[in-house]
């Protein structure tokens, strides 16, 4: 945002970038205003998980974090996990399992699934549900999302 007052260096998806922001911006606002529109704004209340990014590898709701508190942390969005040029195993698994309908919730799910599988490469159904408890999907009914996480886990093990 050209009229934002502060310029601050953040680490986003492994790169040091200067973001223009206000002192009272949430991390969600700061990221979206600086072009990271893969981070979605669903509820702004910490309830839906569409805005989840990783801070130092842990999924957090970017609408519930003030941006400046993240300036010394590594921020990872869904495009940091994989993008058109380098699709991740997790993104492939979501598509193949039919876990994507409108797609609005998916960036948050991808970010959370990546953190889950790094922490626990072989999660049970129960562990997947517990870990994804902050991600809501209004389309799929979750069954295929759980399938996608398990598919990604099995492919990552083989790799």
């Amino acid at each position, binding site marked *: 945002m050209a009229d934002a007052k502060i310029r601050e260096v953040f680490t986003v998806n492994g790169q040091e970038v200067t973001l223009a922001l206000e002192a009272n911006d949430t991390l969600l606002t700061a990221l979206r205003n600086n072009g990271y529109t893969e981070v979605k704004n669903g509820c702004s209340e910490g309830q839906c998980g569409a805005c989840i990014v990783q801070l130092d590898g842990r999924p*957090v709701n970017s609408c519930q*974090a003030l941006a400046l*508190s993240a300036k010394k942390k590594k921020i990872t969005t869904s495009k940091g996990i994989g993008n058109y040029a380098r699709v991740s195993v997790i993104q492939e698994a979501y598509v193949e399992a039919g876990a994507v309908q409108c797609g609005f919730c998916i960036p948050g799910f991808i970010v959370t699934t990546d953190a889950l599988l790094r922490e626990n490469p072989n999660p049970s159904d129960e562990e997947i549900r517990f870990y994804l408890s*902050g991600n809501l999907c209004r389309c799929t009914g979750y069954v295929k999302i759980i399938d996608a996480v398990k598919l990604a886990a099995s492919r990552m093990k083989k790799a």
Partner: protein
Amino acid sequence: MLRKDLRWFFPEKPDEIPAILKNEAKAAFHAGGTSILRTKPESITALIDLGGLGWNTIRADGSAVVIGAMATFNDVIKSTASKAATFRMLQAALARAASNSVRNRITIGGSLADYAPWSDLIAPLVALEADVVYLEDGKGEKKVSVTDFIGKKLAKEKNCIREVRIPEKEIVFAVKRLARTAFEYGMFSLAVCGKYSGGAFESVAIALSGTKDRYARLAEAEKVLTGKPLSDALAREAADTIKVEFAPDVNFGAEYKANMVGVYLRDALAEIAGRK
């Protein structure tokens, strides 16, 4: 609305805090920031981020588990610092709070200072008779019981919580919360713990949070349960002593919530009796 001209401070040592508090018109501590973002107080002129002080560690010191104020709920849940049942009770209670991603953000210190009626932290801390260590006006270190910390309203703007200490003890416990769905603010939380042998409590502590007075120790029920064989009839007798007041909300009436405390207490006691 939080002010756009909010000034941020990132102290790396606690002794940097007093000068900031002195020089700023109205400074507030920033931990996870989730409550600050919910309430968005316009009066705050500066935020003091506590993330650079190394206060997120959890360790056992021989008699207590010492939990840094900046430890998140998930830091506590995942910690292997102590195997004591008292710590496991806190872990069980916090695992029910919010969602995984929110638990990665909300901290022990921020939750204690915030003291929300739906907090999953307060009931276990009260039942476990935890202590709170804080820096008075950002300076001298003080230790008080959690009930004094809450009762004397010590979570004033200038008192900075540094750590919470949970005594390491072998106890039996059960934690319950009333909510419509798993990921929802709890309407109340109930924590029951004590020394239990031969089918009876030698001592028991029962704490409830979310009431009109924010929290209560259910002393009458504790008295009924101490020293007598635990049975359904005794659990009912204990539940019948409960007199607590709630405010109604959009989901539940005040009377319903008060009734449910007795139901959940009986459930908790059945769980404890069944485990032993």
